[in-house]
């Protein structure tokens, strides 16, 4: 069969998603009609409308915050940690039980490949609940004093790149610490958060402890600025993060921000090259590059640049782009037309500024929002594609000559979320890791996440951490 082995389509059945024609917001333990303008959520891989979703108005936000307050005052804030823990454990188990349904629904709504929603998003979401459940009755051992108190009502706004996982990152620690939650999922990806609401019902979580309000930015703004919210947690762009931080000035609300990034992935000449190539690919093409910690700047030592780029281009050309439900798809759909246009615009800027564009020859579906994996070489620090977050499957390649130069270039950004280091020399790893101004440093690996490992940024990538003991601080009055 030499040379012409095509993989037949291997689609996961979309029936598993139990897709409903309409979804409603979740307030005070019930699914209710929102009084905002309903939105239509679209499958970005086909541009078909998946469902109509009710959205919240300012009055709905107010109701939800009040419900969360009642639940906090009367039940959740007073409940012994050991009891809270059991609810959270239940949620973890229910996510595992409904894992396949959630994975298919996530891929439909978000466009990400089923392999990733199945093997990363959903299991990691369950893991976050499982991990934090165990903290609920052990907070006195977390290093914040013998009896750290919750903050109250948490208003949480999450992005569209990991809809369920980000909900888990936000809700699990908040509940474990004794807070109640009003969460707004992203406008383009509300569905899995609403299934998570259903799971909260199945877990018999007391009404009002978790409230889910779909909607656009205006709902998020209402929520974070609501006087009844004690704590604001936001994951999203640095631009919006700054707006929120500004709007909360003087409010005294505790904030955590997980914002953008422009991570450098540094490959030294003694790196394990084949694994470095894998790490580079995983770093920028995982989840279509819609990852705040994506390794979007490759910094490669000049002496191996050509060899590495040859290997990289070959490897990237094997990435399969297309139907997010196909089990063999490596790179799915861009989440929205707006995002696709932004990627196209920045890529065009790369051309205009003189970088060399290479695009994978992989076939790309005609319908839906797709962008073929792209590698820009001859990129200079001053170019937009080296400085601005593209949030898409576009890699910018720069070179360096010495370790000092690599570190200087890697840190030359207002962001500071993540960084990658590839070298077989242990002392150099620790040397470079210490110098990276980034909240997460992956050495000889990339894009690893775990509920036990704190995640979060330096500088304009935000503040506060999620995961680990450090992550609890965000939801405790300490």
């Amino acid at each position, binding site marked *: 069969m030499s040379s012409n082995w095509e993989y037949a389509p291997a689609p996961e059945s979309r029936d598993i998603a139990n897709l409903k024609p309409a979804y409603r917001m979740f307030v005070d333990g019930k699914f209710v009609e929102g009084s905002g303008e309903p939105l239509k959520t679209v499958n970005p891989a086909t541009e078909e409308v998946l469902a109509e979703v009710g959205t919240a108005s300012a009055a709905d936000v107010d109701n939800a915050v009040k419900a969360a307050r009642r639940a906090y005052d009367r039940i959740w804030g007073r409940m012994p940690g050991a009891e809270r823990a059991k609810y959270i454990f239940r949620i973890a188990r229910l996510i595992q039980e409904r894992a396949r349904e959630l994975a298919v629904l996530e891929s439909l709504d978000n466009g990400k490949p089923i392999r990733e929603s199945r093997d990363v998003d959903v299991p990691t979401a369950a893991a976050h609940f499982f991990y934090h459940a165990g903290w609920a009755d052990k907070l006195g051992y977390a290093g914040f004093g013998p009896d750290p108190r919750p903050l109250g009502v948490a208003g949480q706004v999450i992005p569209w790149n990991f809809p369920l996982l980000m909900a888990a990152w936000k809700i699990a620690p908040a509940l474990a610490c004794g807070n109640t939650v009003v969460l707004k999922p992203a406008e383009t990806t509300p569905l899995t958060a609403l299934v998570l609401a259903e799971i909260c019902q199945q877990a018999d979580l007391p009404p009002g402890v978790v409230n889910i309000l779909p909607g656009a930015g205006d709902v998020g703004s209402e929520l974070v600025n609501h006087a009844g919210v004690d704590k604001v947690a936001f994951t999203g762009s640095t631009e919006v993060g700054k707006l929120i*931080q500004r709007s*909360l*000035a*003087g409010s005294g609300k505790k904030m955590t921000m997980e914002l953008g990034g422009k991570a450098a992935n540094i490959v030294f000449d003694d790196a394990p090259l084949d694994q470095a190539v894998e790490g580079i690919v995983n770093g920028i093409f995982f989840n279509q590059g819609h990852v705040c910690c994506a390794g979007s700047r490759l910094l490669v030592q000049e002496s191996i640049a050509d060899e590495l780029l040859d290997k990289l281009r070959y490897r990237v050309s094997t990435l399969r782009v297309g139907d997010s439900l196909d089990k063999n798809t490596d790179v799915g759909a861009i989440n929205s037309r707006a995002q696709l246009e932004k990627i196209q615009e920045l890529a065009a800027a790369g051309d205009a500024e003189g970088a060399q564009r290479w695009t994978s020859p992989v076939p790309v579906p005609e319908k839906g929002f797709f962008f073929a994996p792209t590698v820009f070489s001859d990129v200079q620090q001053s170019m937009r594609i080296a400085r601005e977050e593209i949030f898409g499957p576009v890699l910018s390649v720069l070179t360096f000559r010495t370790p000092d130069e690599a570190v200087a270039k890697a840190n030359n950004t207002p962001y500071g979320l993540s960084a990658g280091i590839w070298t077989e020399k242990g002392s150099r790893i620790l040397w470079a890791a210490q110098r990276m101004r980034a*909240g997460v*440093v992956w050495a000889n690996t990339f894009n690893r996440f775990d509920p036990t*490992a704190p995640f979060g940024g330096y500088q304009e990538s935000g503040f506060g951490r999620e995961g*680990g003991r*450090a992550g609890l601080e965000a939801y405790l009055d300490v």
Partner: protein
Amino acid sequence: MSDRISVAKTYKLYIGGAFPRSESGRSYPVNDSRGGFLANASQGSRKDARDAVAAARKAFPGWSGATAYNRGQVLYRVAELLEGRREQFVAEVAASEGTKRGESIVDAAIDRWVWYAGWTDKVASVFGASNPVAGPYFSFSVPEPTGVVAVLAPQASSLLGLVSVVAPVIATGNTCVVVASQDRPLPAITLSEVLATSDVPGGVVNVLTGRTAEIAPWLAAHADVNALDLTGAPEAIKADLERAAAGTVKRLVRSGRGEPDWAREPDVSRLRAVLETKTVWHPMGV
């Protein structure tokens, strides 16, 4: 009283290890609690603030890169020197704050400094972690200094409050630009003199005197400042300062209305507030 005319002291700014006058050439009178003239202090300007930030940034790699043991010894040495100047501090605190408790305040300040000096080499073990991730990786998290911290020192507590906000910032490896209490700046300048003769490298602590409301907005908006301690910020401009700080997503240290009771035993929250957590992953294999 002897007939001798005492040598009056000139109070200047402390930037990058030197004691310049304000580039603006301005000064303002500092009075004691009953309105009697004590001295003229330099009235720092935005350009002084800019220079101070540059000095703090320049000092950051060396100070943050020093071993925790070394930082601990350097800071402990400062306490030794404070002890040596105890009488001068007592006089200045008493004059500034109009208190009879000058001695106990200075003692508490020196003890506070010693407390924080002892933290330098504990921070990583207390706030760091080995993360038991579900995979063949070694993952650990270490606290790191956030960078350059702008500190608006408490307005009332001119020494104990000052020490309580500055010591945790530098114990954790940050460098700072401190805006001293506007009306009670003299202990801060004397502390600068102590720092200048200690082993704390120039630029690690920079002290500006002047109008807080004039200098603070420049620090809050400065893109090379990583964190802002609002403790001594005038209530009227607190929200504005927070808004300005949001421009580069600065970390904020906020306190409620009025000053905390500095005599209370401190906790670790001021250490945590100026620390980042860095998580490092590496595969484990052969």
